[in-house]
């Protein structure tokens, strides 16, 4: 049995509009009559609804969004199927907007999360706010020492926002901003834009006034700063926008607080750290120094190796290099104590052996008093220039690796210097040795981070003393700084990636005092120049 179409058609959810071959409306079902009330049978479709289109994106009509299909019928007639997709589009838009907000906030979190420099964090906050949250954004940080720093991002057309900033005296702050920084929650206020214009943050307000909002960025106690935003023209602050702005403010506040905290702590750490870093040896006539220092904890740049030198009043210099037990900050603090001890003690005793004994007694007392159980190994020497441009080195050893001497012919000698650990027992056995350096010859002190560097093909082999000797052999023409760097480099290259011990090198080279620092004539055919 064929259906009775006249009974079925009124209940179709789509609007149906049947037109004749001339485009004149002939039939309109109830849905179409509701969606397109302009349509009157007997009048042309184009006159009633000129915007009608088969574009899949649809068309706006009486604040609804409609889509239409046109189906050809017999005799040149046609039927338009019109559908109301307003709710569907709204839901999709809402979903997209929510996704955009979530991805915006995720991006903000990632960017701000790794910024620890306060200025970088502040600049990023305003840059991220434009254009999603605002046309212009101004961040005013909490006052420090009576001054207020601010950052601003403005969007010039379609390009990336330009960021600038400045400083104001705390007293010159607009009242609303000062209140907000003080923790008084201010809501949108009409005269805010005028105040911001007065402070030079925003260009002259457009006629009719610019809406501006002030959002505190939560800090530890009072806000870390406040963010002033002017929404894009025509954009009125809706609920979602406000929520997004608040979520952004929470992340920005956390980032600024963390950066400020890091700055304060890093300032303290840096001050302490600088007192623990080895000090470069002073210039002493007749001596060329070379140093290399590579602490195990690269981020801290301090470690348990130390070296140093002090000029002696009667010519020459005291020099030392050593290694304390342990690693990291605690070891570094101990090296600081040790260097200070030496600095003071060398004024009363400059003979290496007795000085080392004196240092041992002093450390023993400190160690026992603090119950630290720390000890050190070191080589300590005095270099005295000779008339011929050479040096006499008198060295004392406290259980450290024996120094190496690069002779003028390119060969390497090991100085027989042993002795016991420093800071363990009273009256330890101290090794002593005297070395003559001819002009151009070099004595090298190094820490066990060089010889115990683990690496090689399988990553488990020690670099070893013999490889160090091989490395130095034939390098007698190298200036001391280049020599020290070369040792650190070769040991560094030997290491397979990963952990390494502290590395320190101190090279002492005899040079003729005067203008020509080390133009040492080398006899022809020496290893350094041969093929």
């Amino acid at each position, binding site marked *: 049995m064929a259906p009775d179409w006249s009974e079925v058609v009124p209940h179709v959810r789509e609007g149906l509009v049947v037109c004749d071959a001339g485009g004149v409306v002939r039939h309109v079902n109830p849905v179409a009559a509701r969606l397109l009330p302009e349509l009157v049978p007997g009048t042309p479709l184009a006159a009633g609804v000129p915007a009608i289109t088969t574009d899949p994106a649809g068309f706006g009509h009486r604040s609804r969004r409609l889509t239409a299909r046109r189906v050809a019928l017999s005799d040149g007639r046609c039927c338009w199927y019109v559908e109301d997709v307003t709710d569907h589009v709204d839901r999709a838009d809402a979903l997209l907007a929510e996704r955009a907000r979530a991805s915006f906030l995720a991006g903000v979190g990632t960017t701000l999360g790794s910024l620890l420099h306060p200025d*970088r964090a502040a600049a990023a906050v305003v840059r991220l706010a434009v254009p999603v949250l605002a046309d212009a954004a101004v961040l005013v940080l909490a006052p420090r020492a009576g001054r207020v720093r601010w950052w601003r991002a403005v969007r010039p057309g379609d390009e990336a926002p330009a960021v600038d900033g400045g400083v104001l005296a705390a007293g010159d702050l607009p009242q609303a901003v000062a209140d907000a920084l003080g923790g008084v929650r201010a809501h949108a206020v009409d005269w805010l834009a005028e105040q911001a214009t007065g402070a030079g943050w925003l260009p002259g307000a457009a006629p009719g006034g610019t809406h501006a909002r002030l959002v505190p960025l939560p800090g530890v106690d009072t806000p870390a700063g406040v963010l002033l935003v002017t929404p894009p023209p025509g954009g009125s602050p809706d609920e979602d926008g406000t929520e997004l702005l608040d979520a952004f403010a929470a992340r920005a506040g956390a980032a600024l607080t963390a950066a400020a905290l890091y700055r304060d702590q890093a300032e303290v750490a840096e001050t302490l750290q600088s007192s623990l870093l080895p000090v470069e040896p002073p210039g002493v006539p007749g001596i060329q120094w070379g140093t290399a220092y590579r602490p195990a904890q690269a981020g801290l740049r301090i470690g348990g190796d130390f070296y140093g030198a002090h000029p002696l009043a009667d010519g020459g210099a005291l020099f030392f290099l050593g290694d304390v037990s342990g690693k990291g900050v605690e070891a570094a603090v101990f090296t600081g104590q040790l260097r200070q001890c030496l600095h003071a003690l060398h004024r009363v005793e400059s003979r290496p052996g007795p000085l080392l004994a004196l240092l041992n007694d002093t450390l023993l007392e400190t160690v026992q008093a603090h119950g630290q159980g720390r000890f050190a190994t070191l080589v300590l020497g005095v270099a005295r220039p000779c008339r011929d441009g050479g040096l006499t080195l008198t060295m004392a050893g406290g259980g450290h690796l024996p120094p190496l001497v690069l002779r003028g012919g390119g060969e390497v000698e090991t100085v027989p210097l042993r002795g016991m650990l420093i800071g363990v027992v009273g009256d330890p056995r101290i090794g002593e040795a005297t070395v003559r350096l001819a002009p151009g010859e070099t004595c090298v002190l190094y820490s066990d981070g060089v010889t115990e560097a683990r690496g090689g093909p399988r990553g488990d082999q020690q670099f070893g003393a013999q490889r160090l000797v091989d490395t130095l052999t034939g390098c007698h023409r190298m200036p001391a700084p280049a020599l020290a760097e070369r040792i650190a*480099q070769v040991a560094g290259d030997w290491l397979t990636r990963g952990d390494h011990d502290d590395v320190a090198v101190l090279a002492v080279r005899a040079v003729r005092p005067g203008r020509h620092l080390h133009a040492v004539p080398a006899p022809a055919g020496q290893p350094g120049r041969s*093929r």
Partner: protein
Amino acid sequence: MTAARTPAAAYADYLDHLAEADESGAIGVALDLLDAGVPAERVLLDLVAPAQEDVGERWARNEWSVAQEHAATHVSERVVAALAGRTRAVPTRGRIVVACMDGEWHALPPRLVAEVLRLRGWRVTFLGASVPAAHLVSYLHRHDAHAVALACAVPVRLPQAHRMVEACRRADVPVLVGGRGFGADGRWADRLGMLWAPDAPAAADLVADARALSRVPPARLDHLADDEYAALVARRAELVDGALADLRERVPATRAYDRARLDATVSDLGHILDFLAAALYVDDGSLFTEFVRWLVTVLTSRGVPAAALAATLEHYGGVLREFPRAAGFLDRGRALLASAAEPVGR
């Protein structure tokens, strides 16, 4: 003797001073040019920089020992310091941090970049050779920087360079890179999504252009999904062991090597893998073939025949059969060796 008035005229004299590790002589040549009215930037770029390139090439051809190369480099650094002492530039612009990649010891080229930037009014911090990433990042967290300039002279460090650049970017500091490690035309920097400057003046122009500095090309590293790079790095020790055993089998003379020669051989075998890994990382076989070309120069000037290298490449190619990209690069390396050997007629 009258002082030369142009870097070109002074060049030969200057190189002689480098050869003698004669610091005061070299400094004298550079300062005389300055006194003759040559701008400091030209002395740096037309005298110091090309001389340093010569030094590297002399080492590669075994004309200079490594000790001489180091001594000459040290003298060059002293020359740069002396020029810096004579040209006081008052910083009027932001801070630029210049550093060598971790494990990168060629500090002179970035030092020249640092000096050129300083002469152009930037406040420059030069962190020196082989800067660990942790040190660089903690520095950036402490001291705001307009940009970071990173140097990499050897392409084996490209994967580390990539990680280091990413770390700087997380600190929200723009990064530019330079040095031969990124390819003569910077193509590997482009592949890794980095801004690259061919020389010091270009680097100076780049940091001065905020828009250019923010225009970072996207990294194209989809090829890493095949894990060939990761597998090669993980199997490095085992592969070197195998190659050494193979070498001892084929060339009995290598069994009698003393420790130093053995170390050098093992280091060469590892180097081949490191360059192969870097080539896989940027997916460019020319990185590996360029290395093979260079290694041939170094080895033949030291009496090692290129055939030994070809056999090792063949060995690696056999072991790495299941890695199509790596095997392809090794094949290209062998093809290069074969074509290089032909004119000799053996």
